[in-house]
């Protein structure tokens, strides 16, 4: 293993008595021994062990099948029908998908979602990375600050959106009052088609960066100090250490965070619903908003399900990319 690669994590690594240099080799040897021991077990014992494992997993598996997998299949089926409010429906094949491909509003909402994702993800990840790096170096009251930065994440999105709406208000919002006090003109953050998405993305980044920050902080803490110390001894500056040592070692965690945040961004709805109701002129009308309107305003459940399935595919593609990239890193 190269020194610049992340350390393999095994319970043995955490043993305070294990000498740092010998630990990985020792851990690997123990793992091989354990595997060999397992291989020698008689078949009934292995089966019993597998059944016990399955029993532990079963409740979660059942919940997953009932509340995730089943409904997804149900939605896939519904997207092939013209299900009506009365409960009647006819099978219409791929008609909903054909209509979707020719629906300008679908493409418009997909475009809005893509632009929002392109704005939200870098904002959130940079904010999370910055605060994680600061927290990593902070020794005094680290727990307090970690809690403080994480607080927006556990705040209700509706509450956060309402507060940010007040902050952005044209007439007497906090931002515009500050701009006014500085002698600058008013900015219509939510009423301007060009500014509305960056404004919502900034509010959402404030709300959501805490989760990624914690993951990145854990990633930073897993980087062996001796690696950065070696770079310091070699004369690397703080920026060089971050750019050439920390960042490459953090890459798998960073990829994970990027993909999670992108998936989150593709499902944006609440913030837009509360702050702008999709306006102005549909400038913040996301794909999920389109889905919501199709189902619950136009009562077009089959069509809404088709939108949901497309969204599911987009998220699936992102998840596969994540799997592939992280898998490659681990290899």
């Amino acid at each position, binding site marked *: 293993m190269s020194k610049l690669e992340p350390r393999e994590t095994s319970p043995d690594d955490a043993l305070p008595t294990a000498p740092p240099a010998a630990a990985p080799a020792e851990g690997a040897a123990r793992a091989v021994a354990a595997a060999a021991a397992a291989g020698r077990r008689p078949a009934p014992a292995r089966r019993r062990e597998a059944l016990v494992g399955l029993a532990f997993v079963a409740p979660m598996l059942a919940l997953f099948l009932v509340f995730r997998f089943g409904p997804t299949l*149900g*939605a896939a089926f*519904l997207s092939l029908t013209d*299900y009506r*409010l009365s409960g009647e429906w006819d099978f219409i094949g791929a008609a909903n998908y054909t209509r979707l491909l020719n629906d300008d509003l679908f493409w418009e909402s997909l475009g809005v979602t893509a632009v929002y994702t392109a704005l939200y993800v870098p904002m959130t990840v940079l904010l999370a990375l910055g605060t994680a790096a600061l927290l990593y170096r902070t020794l005094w009251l680290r727990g307090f600050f970690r809690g403080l930065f994480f607080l927006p994440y556990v705040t209700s999105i509706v509450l956060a959106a309402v507060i940010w709406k007040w902050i952005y208000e*044209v007439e007497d919002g906090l931002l515009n009052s500050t701009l006014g006090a500085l002698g600058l003109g008013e900015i219509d953050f939510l009423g301007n088609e060009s500014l509305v998405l960056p404004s919502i993305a900034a509010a959402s980044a404030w709300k959501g960066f805490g989760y990624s920050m914690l993951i990145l902080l854990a990633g930073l803490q897993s980087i062996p100090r001796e690696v950065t110390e070696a770079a310091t001894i070699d004369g690397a500056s703080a920026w060089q250490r971050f750019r050439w040592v920390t960042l490459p070692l953090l890459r798998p965690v960073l990829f994970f965070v990027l993909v999670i945040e992108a998936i989150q961004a593709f499902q944006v709805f609440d913030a837009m619903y509360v702050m702008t*109701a999709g306006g*102005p002129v549909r400038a913040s009308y996301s794909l999920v908003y389109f889905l919501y309107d199709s189902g619950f305003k*136009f*009562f077009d459940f089959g069509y809404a399900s088709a939108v949901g399935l497309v969204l599911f595919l987009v998220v699936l593609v992102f998840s596969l990319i994540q799997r592939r990239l992280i898998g490659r890193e681990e290899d």
Partner: protein
Amino acid sequence: MKTGFKRATVPLALLTLTALTAAGCAGGDSGSGSNKVTVWMYPVIMDPKANAAYWDGIEKGFEAAHKDLDLAVEQLPWENRDQKLATAFGSGKGPDVVLLGPDQIPQFQANGAVQPVDRAIEKARSAFRPAALEAMTQDGKVYAAPIYHTVTSTLYNKKLLDKAGIKEPPATWDALKAAAPKLKRAGVATLDYSASNEASLNMSFYPLLWQAGGKVFDESGKKTAFSSPEGVEALTFLVDLYKAGAVPRSALTNANLFTDQALGKEQVAMGYTNTPSDAALAEKTWGKGNAIVGPALTGPRKQVCFGMPGGLGINARTKNLTGAEKFITYMTEPAQIRSMGTAGGFFSPRTDVTVPNGSPFAKEYEAALAHTFPGEPHPAARQLMALITPEIQAALTGKKSPEQALEAAAKEGDDLLARQR
């Protein structure tokens, strides 16, 4: 296709839709047993405590009168009520009885989600105001029994009018246009307006359209009719006000909520009001004598305002039709109409019942009642609003001219109507 398969698949799929949008089904299990009657009610009485106390009293009174029935009135917020009802109806759940407005009825009736209430109001039928009953009628059958009537009239802030040197509250389009520069000089806007996608056009653009002599749908109901000279006149009036700073800039995304928006915050001199309790709240906020309830706004051709009955409808899939009908009969009796009107500040939908109203604004509302219009009932009325609103926003922001905006909305609207079953 086997029915059992349908039964199993569709609820699952609807569950997904709900989960995907986080819209959620409200109220949990609303299914009724054989002796249970479930009602979905909204905060029709503004004060939450008074609202809860009123419906508690109704539950006790009804159960005392019908000992075999168990009434459960579930309180839901006004927000997203169509969406919540659609989710409930679509999944075969929902309450036995629900409060409905005239513009909701056509869409739910067309989708077979509600059933007629004629039998429940058989004895009281001739006592209802004809207009109130007509607003609830679809294809010759009544789909909601009126229990109250609202009037959306004008509300003025006298303090702000005085500050601008305006003696008479502007009650016509011309007077509004004349007042706008004076109010702007006084540092406030003239008319509170919501162009938000989630705001009902019945409370914003449609009254202007009607005042200009326009209509939303044509006679056949198969085409839109708002992209007309009258429609353009109404939208131009609004755009001119917006450009002149007479409509708050937050109108693009804000809903017209008195407590939180420009009117409540005294940034605008005029808005709309639904009930005397609105006016009472305004007076409490602005100071005694500063809230003025005015007449229905007069446009170039008509003096008209929005106003509608609120009524009780029955879920088409109710398991307790008899109980639901008994509750509706009970709620339309004079005693309940009177108590509802008194508690909520509403008007009586019955000609033989007068609601004792101690509000100092009662006379003004009563005068506006004569000019109310409950909207144009159509199965796609609500959906059409979702298509018109972004185009109104486009006109307000200057992206399109009023003509272009209405033409674009009409094109989308006509496509929607063509798709209607």
